[in-house]
Every structure is written in structure tokens, then in C-alpha cells.
């Protein structure tokens, strides 16, 4: 009897492990984290680790290939003494402010246009995405040729049309023109992201609301102001949030077009960080430049996400 009982338990053992595993996997508390863990692992490896390293570097005197030690906030304090850094700080706000503001207005306009019944609607929507799809360095090289002092097609066209006096503006050699050029290219590049995302928001607005507003006598402007805009707010907030972060951390456009010049007037945090951190070996200072705005951006993210939650729920 006893022997037979032992045999029965032994035979059931594998089945019971499978059963126990099955029960375990049925629990949300186990299955959820299990599904999330690969993504979490990747995030830790590719985001958290480099971020923590950057944090460490920024408070150290790290120099490529040499032993380093912690120096506190010395890098952050010293940077403020540098004329190039103060100029970069100012550039970052001017560049981001101008580019994001233009992208909001133009992106919204383009989305409204794309939402209309147009011929070749799908082809046009696809074409609008092109600037966003082409690798930035490649498309910026095209812009560089267009603004190049020797071959500028922009100036050539302007002069041919009688809109400019020869030789035309010195796009990349004069600080205001250079800033205009980099902002312009950033707008060109970022516009599809705004337009397509806002378009997705527009499509989701129920037609009944417009019909009701129309029945109440609301005109085009009133319908936009009281129906479209309020319902687009959460989408707009997310788009602006992402764009602000991407624009603040822009690198390719400035690096290819102006290299930060003339006289540092187009340097952004990323390009200056590269110049000091990689080309001159001062990783500590480079990391401090990259992270200078982190606290401010973190606050912006927090505030905007709170706003979005309030709007949605």
C-alpha cells in the first residue's frame, strides 16, 4: 500500500510542477512583470546605465582614458564662466522656442489641410512624412548645399527672381541668418511629426460634435476654437512635450550646417558637449553640458504629463 502510494506521487510529480507553473502564470502579479521584464532589461541596459554613467561623469573630472575622481558640481559651475557655454545656453532656448512655436502653428495648419477631402490624399500624407523619414544627416547635407556660399540655390533663385541683391544673404556666416537656417531646417524636419500626430487626433474627434456645433450656428472659426482645439489639447501637449525634448537635444542639423558657428552662435548643448567631451577628451565637462538642462526638462515633463492626465481623465 505504502509502496504503491509513493509510486503514485512520483508519477504525478512532473504533472504537478506543470500545474503549479500554470497556476503561477495565471496570476497577474507574476505574468505582468514576466512580460515586462525583457523591455525593462533593455531599458536598464540601454537607458538607465548610460544615464547613470553620464551622471557620474558630470560630477567627476573624467578625461578619456585616465583615472578620474568625483569633483562635485565644479563642472557645472565652471561651465557658466565660459562665454561659449553661456552663448550655447541662450541659443538652445532661442532655437527650441522658435522651432517648436513654428512647428505647432504650421503642423496644426498642415494637419487641418490633410484632414480635408483632397485628391491623392494617401499619396500626399505619405509624401508629407518624407522629411521625417530621410536620415537627418543626409537631408541636412542637402540643405547645406542650398545655403552654401558658393553654390547656394536659395540665393541663386532669390537673385534670379529679383528678391535679393547679389551675392544674397550669407546664410551660414552671419549669426542671425545662421540661426534662421538651422531653425528652418529643424522645422522642415519636425513638421511631419506634428502634422501626422495632430491629424490622428483630428480624425478621432466625433463628427457629431461638429454637426451639433454647426446646428447651433457656430462658424468655421468657432468650431475650431470651441470643438477642435479643446479636444486636441492632450495630443498637442504630448507632441509639444516630445518636440521640446527632441529640439533641445538636436545635434545633426547644427553639426552638419554650421558646426556651431559663426562665433558659437548656433551651438546647442549636444554639439558643444561633443566638442568638449569627445574632441578635447574632457568627458566630465561634456557630460555636464549634456545634463545641464536635465532638471528643467524633468520638471517640464512632469508638468505636462500632469496636464495631460488631467485633460484625459
Amino acid at each position, binding site marked *: 500500500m505504502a509502496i504503491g502510494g509513493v509510486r503514485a506521487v512520483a508519477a504525478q510529480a512532473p504533472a504537478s510542477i506543470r500545474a503549479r507553473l500554470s497556476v503561477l502564470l495565471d496570476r497577474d502579479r507574476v505574468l505582468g512583470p514576466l512580460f515586462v521584464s525583457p523591455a525593462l532589461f533593455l531599458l536598464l541596459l540601454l537607458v538607465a546605465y548610460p544615464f547613470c554613467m553620464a551622471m557620474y561623469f558630470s560630477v567627476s573630472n573624467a578625461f*578619456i*582614458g585616465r583615472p578620474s575622481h568625483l569633483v562635485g558640481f565644479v563642472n557645472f559651475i565652471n561651465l557658466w564662466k565660459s562665454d561659449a557655454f553661456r552663448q550655447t545656453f541662450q541659443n538652445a532656448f532661442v532655437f527650441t522656442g522658435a522651432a517648436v512655436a513654428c512647428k505647432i502653428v504650421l503642423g496644426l495648419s498642415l494637419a487641418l489641410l490633410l484632414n480635408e477631402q483632397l485628391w491623392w490624399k494617401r499619396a500626399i500624407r505619405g509624401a508629407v512624412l518624407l522629411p521625417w523619414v530621410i536620415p537627418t544627416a543626409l537631408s541636412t547635407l542637402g540643405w547645406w548645399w542650398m545655403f552654401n*556660399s558658393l553654390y547656394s540655390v536659395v540665393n541663386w533663385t532669390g537673385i534670379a527672381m529679383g528678391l535679393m541683391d547679389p551675392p544674397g544673404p550669407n546664410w551660414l556666416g552671419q549669426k542671425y541668418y545662421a540661426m534662421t537656417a538651422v531653425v528652418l531646417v529643424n522645422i522642415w524636419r519636425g513638421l511631419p511629426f506634428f502634422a501626422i500626430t495632430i491629424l490622428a487626433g483630428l480624425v478621432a474627434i466625433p463628427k457629431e460634435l461638429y454637426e451639433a456645433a454647426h446646428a447651433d450656428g457656430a462658424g468655421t472659426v468657432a468650431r475650431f476654437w470651441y470643438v477642435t482645439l479643446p479636444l486636441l489639447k492632450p495630443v498637442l501637449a504630448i507632441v509639444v512635450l516630445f518636440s521640446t525634448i527632441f529640439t533641445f537635444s538636436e545635434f545633426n542639423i547644427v553639426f552638419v550646417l554650421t558646426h556651431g558657428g*559663426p562665433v558659437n552662435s548656433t551651438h546647442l548643448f549636444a554639439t558643444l558637449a561633443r566638442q568638449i567631451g569627445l574632441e578635447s577628451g574632457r568627458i566630465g565637462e561634456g557630460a555636464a553640458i549634456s545634463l545641464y538642462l536635465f532638471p528643467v526638462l524633468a520638471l517640464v515633463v512632469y508638468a505636462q504629463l500632469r496636464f495631460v492626465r488631467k485633460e484625459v481623465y
Partner: protein
Amino acid sequence: MEHVSRRRFLTTATGLAGILAAGVSPARGQQRQVSYLCWNNFAPASDKKLAEIGQRFAKDTGIKLKIDHIAAPQQAAKYASEVQTQAGHDVVEMRMHFPWLYEPQLVDVSDLVAEMEKKYGAVIPSARETANVKGVWRAVPQYHAFFVAAYREDLFKKASLKTPDTWEDLYAVGKELKKMGHPIGIPISQNYDSISTAGPVLWAFGGMEVDKDGKTVRINSPATEQMVEWYRKIYRDCMEPEVLSWTDASNNESLQQGKAGWIHNPVSAYIVARNNKLPTADGINHHKSLAGQNGQRHETDAPRHIGIWKFSKNIEPSKEWIRYLLGKREVYDEYIMSGDAFNLPVYANLQDHPVLKTDPKFAALKQEGVQFHCYGWPAPASDKVQLITNSFILPNMLAKAVTGTSTKEVVAWADGEMKKIIAE
């Protein structure tokens, strides 16, 4: 599926574990190999020749050689990542002050340099300044490409202009050239060509950025003020505002495309025009470097070296490769000849190299009596001098001046910026 016995499984698993733990592959069947990272040479034929020599090296020595190329602007980031991860190539090409920046990570190659000097004579000063770090050779000097005066000889003849001998002469000539629609092309922007001209002009006026001690900033001097004034007038009367936006390639393009009448650049501008059969090629020639008020002639030189990372597991094969490329006279000559006078030897006894006789327009490259130095001279190369260079303080000082800021103000600004870097 083939049956795997328990014994065979255990043997294989233990072997693999051993290899993983040691981090070294088994010696049996292992081929010696070297990986070499270098830039995309501005003389592309030189890269082809390098690949050819590499194949012969592999055949002659049995050492497998892998050559990778990278664009110059990406070198710094790539080297930084290799050093930080202690992994990557065995041998790397070094430019500017790289041997000083990466000093603790580079193998002492004094033995190799001694062999080269015994064969070819002493290393030229600019290469010594940059590759010899505190008495230790951290890289083996490979070749150099220095700046010269490249001009449109046909235009000069047409207007009966004499080739300038001093920077002041250039101003007089430049006024005429601009009137002819062929301005002078000296970049005043955030690139290395701008510093490559600003340096020699500053030195020719008797000025310097930082003194020999590497600590005392000397930019705030009457010599600098004179140099700034010279730039102000040459920008106003002999150049066009486009120079404020130029990249390293813009002056070359301006000369090649028939706009600029005179530029300061290595011979690459002419070589490209000649090899691509551009209409301007026949009219381009070179003349001796210009003298300053003190009669001295200086030129910026950017020597290139070959270094070996300390983390390399193939240090000896790497040294064999360097010996093969630079230490064998016939191979080194072959390599230099492929560079079309853009890559010139860095050893004293090879200065009158046959490559200079391959084109009559290379005659001016002999440059007797001209002093060659890397950026920042006379300060010894260091990370701080490199940061002053990389921050483009010199060209930015000049850009501020030519766009309206007073000389005193811009010199004081440059002085302040340099002092901050030196003091850190």
C-alpha cells in the same frame, strides 16, 4: 543528429568554459592578426596603396591585417569609445595632439622611432612636438601635410601681379584680385583651416597664444593686435563675407571652381583640380610661405602618426606592421609616392623626396627656411592647448573683429577665454 557522448560533451563544455574565463582563444590554429584604424585620406590613392601594401604584409609575414577607414570628424568619438571600452582596433592613426590626449593609453614606441631615425634621419620638429610626449614616443611619425600658398598663376600673369613674399604683400595683391572678381580665400570660421592660417599669421607678427611654459597666456599683446588689424583690412578689402561660413573644404572649392585667386591650403586643392581635369587646374600653382614683419616664415603642420593601444593583445604584430609600412624604405617610398605630395615624409633625410619632382607645381613644397609647427605653438602640446584649439578661440576672435568689434575688445575676450582654460 549525431550522438554526443557524455565524455565528449564534458570535454567540449570544459574547454569552452576555460576559453571564456581566460578571454583568450586557444593558441592551436590561431592566426596572428592586426586591426588598423585610419582616416579617409584626402589623397584617396593613398588608401588604395595602403590596402595593397597590407595584402603584401599579410602574405610576407603571415599576419592577417584588417584596415578600417573613418572620416576625420568621427575619429575623436571613435577613439574615445575604444579607450573607454578598452576594446577595438590594435593600431590607430593619430593626428594633431592625439598622442598627448591619449598618452596613458598608448604603447611606448620609442624603439620603433629610433629605428626610423637611424634609417631616415631625425623626425621633423612638428612631428616631434606632437608625438613625443614628455620624452617618450607615444606614436610613430608617419607623414605630414602642411599649408602652402596656392594661387591662380594665370590671373597673376594677366594682371602683371608679383607673387607676394610677405603677408603685407598679400594685402596689396589681394586688393587687385578682389577688383578682378577673384578674392582671397582665407576662412574665418569654426574649422581647423581657419586656425591653420591664423596661427602662421600670428607667429609671423611675433605673437603667440600660450608661452613655452604651457601656462602663461600671451595672446593679449601688441603683436596680436597687429595681426587682428591685418585680418580686418584683408577681410574688408580682399575677401568676401562668405569666408565667415566656410568649412575646411570651402577654400579648396573656391579655388577649384574659379572664384578665389589665392588661398592658404595644402596642395590637395591643386591635386583634386588636376586629377578631375578641372579648367582651373592648369592655372593653379604654389609659392613659398609668406614672411612676417620679423622676416620669419611659419606654417601650420598637421603630422600624422601611428599609435598602438595598450589594451591591444597584438602589440608585437602591430609593431611588425609599422616596421613594414614605415621602416622598409621601398615600401615607405611607394606609400609616399601614392599620396601625390599631399602626404610627405616626416624624417629629415627624406625631405627632398622624389614625389616633389612628379609635378613641377610641387617645387614650392621644398620650403627651405620655413618653420613648421602644430596648433598652439610654442606651447607644448597638452590637453589644454588642444581645448584652446578645439574651442576655435583664435578664429572666433578674428570673426568678432572683422564683423565690427574693436581690436582691444576681441583680444581681451580671447585672453579671458584662454586664461579660463589654462586655469582649470
